[in-house]
């Protein structure tokens, strides 16, 4: 039993019929109370993982524990505590927002007042008799989130929830997710193929590529990882001498410049002093901090 984790998978592997492994030995660990950004390019295995977590796909290999209980043997009791939105919104176009929620209300033992609450939360309280097929994509997405919130879940699983939302909608969604986490202590697992989209709200990150989990940990760990990747690009009147002077920093020659790793800007100044002290003309001194987006691309592209 792992009660510190809302979700824990062990060696999760999955293969669609006659295909290659879609998932391979995924060990996902989502801490209770965290906002976990599950990142990866399209086709990397995010939706397959989430579908397995919700029992939409039958687990082939490995184990899934949610709230410390095995999903395989406790599916229904677990699903009562989980809200989800997988890919596009799942709504009945001929029903109103309220009726869409009413379809599932009793399954979760929710009161009628809860419908008003969740509609208020997502800003759809005033839609009246308008049926869902007449909603904009943003409204549909919000209604799907209201549906996920109906059970007042302890765990919310959102698969690419900002798909099709305009920038204002994305900001609104981000605020809502942060509020749900802060106010209700809800654990939220949110998948995306855009790091920049989720890094402003997540506390933990998992990066998946080609069905393998490449990185997992707190966002701060990812930031440390990022700082290690910052490099200084230098061009001087004699790059060979510069290389010798900076030998301790293991310089790399890149075209007509050299690059060295650095951690703080003070090191940039020190390098400049060293070079000029040896009568070298410095033409270029360009610190390039690897941003998370670049790191994400680096992590996933080095594996391909």
């Amino acid at each position: 039993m792992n009660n510190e984790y809302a979700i824990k998978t062990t060696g999760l592997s999955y293969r669609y019929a006659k295909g290659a492994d879609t998932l391979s030995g995924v060990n996902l660990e989502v801490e209770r109370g965290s906002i976990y950004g599950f990142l990866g390019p399209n086709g990397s295995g995010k939706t397959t993982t989430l579908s397995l977590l919700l029992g939409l796909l039958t687990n082939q290999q490995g184990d899934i524990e949610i709230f410390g209980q095995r999903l395989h043997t406790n599916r229904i009791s677990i699903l009562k505590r989980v809200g989800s939105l997988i890919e596009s919104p799942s709504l009945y176009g001929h029903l109103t927002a309220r009726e869409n929620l009413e379809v599932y209300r009793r399954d979760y033992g929710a009161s009628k007042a809860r419908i008003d609450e969740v509609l208020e939360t997502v800003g759809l309280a005033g839609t009246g008799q308008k049926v869902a097929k007449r909603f904009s994509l943003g409204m549909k997405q919000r209604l799907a989130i209201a549906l996920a919130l109906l059970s007042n879940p302890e765990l919310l699983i959102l698969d690419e929830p900002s798909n099709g939302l305009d920038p204002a909608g994305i900001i609104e969604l981000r605020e809502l997710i942060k509020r749900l986490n802060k106010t209700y202590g809800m654990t939220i697992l949110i998948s995306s193929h855009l790091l920049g989209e989720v890094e402003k709200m997540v506390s933990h990150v998992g990066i998946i590529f080609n069905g393998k989990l490449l990185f997992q940990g707190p966002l701060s760990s990812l930031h440390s990882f990022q700082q290690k990747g910052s490099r200084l690009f230098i061009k001087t009147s004699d790059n060979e001498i510069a290389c010798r002077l900076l030998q301790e920093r293991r310089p790399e020659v890149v075209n007509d410049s050299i690059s060295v790793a650095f951690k703080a800007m003070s090191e940039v100044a020190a390098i400049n002093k060293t070079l000029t002290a040896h009568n070298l003309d410095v033409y270029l001194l360009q610190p390039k901090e690897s941003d998370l987006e670049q790191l994400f691309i680096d992590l996933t592209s080095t594996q391909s």
Partner: protein
Amino acid sequence: MSLLISLRSEALKTKRTAAFYFTLIGAAIVPLIYLLNVFTDGLSDTKKDPLNAILRLNGEMNGFAFFPLFVVLVCTLLPQIEHRNNTWKQVLTAPRSKATVFVAKLLNVQLLLLLFLVANHVFIFLAIVIAHFADPSVGLLHQPLNGTVVLTRAANTYITISALCAAQFWMGLRFRNFIVPTAIGLAFWLTGTLMVLEYHSRAAEYFPYSFQLFGIMPNLRPQLVQVVWTSLAYGAVFLLLGYWDFSRRRMHQ
């Protein structure tokens, strides 16, 4: 309890759908044809036991064509609600077992079938009342009514359709495309009808899409009891196969 909750959800999903209106419209067709006939040709053809003759004709027309066609279409329309709205994944991540989902959907179909039969009888009695006032000389409302025959005929119509209904229900769940199960259903219904009416085939006793004719064709009445049991047995087998298929398929993709 969870089955009742799921059945209630299924019933709510049919609100404002074609399936609900289609049931009422389908049930009203024969009574409307009858009324049209009354207003164009009068009641002269039904002088002998006219009330029971009208009800027999209503039962035969429904049993022969309108009810089986309605079953083919409604068994396709109801699962289409999930396919068309892309809602299978939400249904299957709700805290319900797959068995509950399957049975609730089947019961919802059965409710619409029963609604069709009840509504049809209500409409035909309304049509009879209107016909009586249109031509009081026949005295339709003063004729003896053989209620047992009416009920038995309706029950036979409902039970003999079990096999066809189960097969169509399975196909409706299985195919995302509306056309495939509808086309198969219509083609088999025509085949079953021709087997009985044109070829007088003995194989009709074993072909589910012929069974509904055994309740209305006088020359087939002796085999009716056997066909009723065959229909129920086929229905059970199709439902078991349908559930097995439903439980292992990825419905949401």
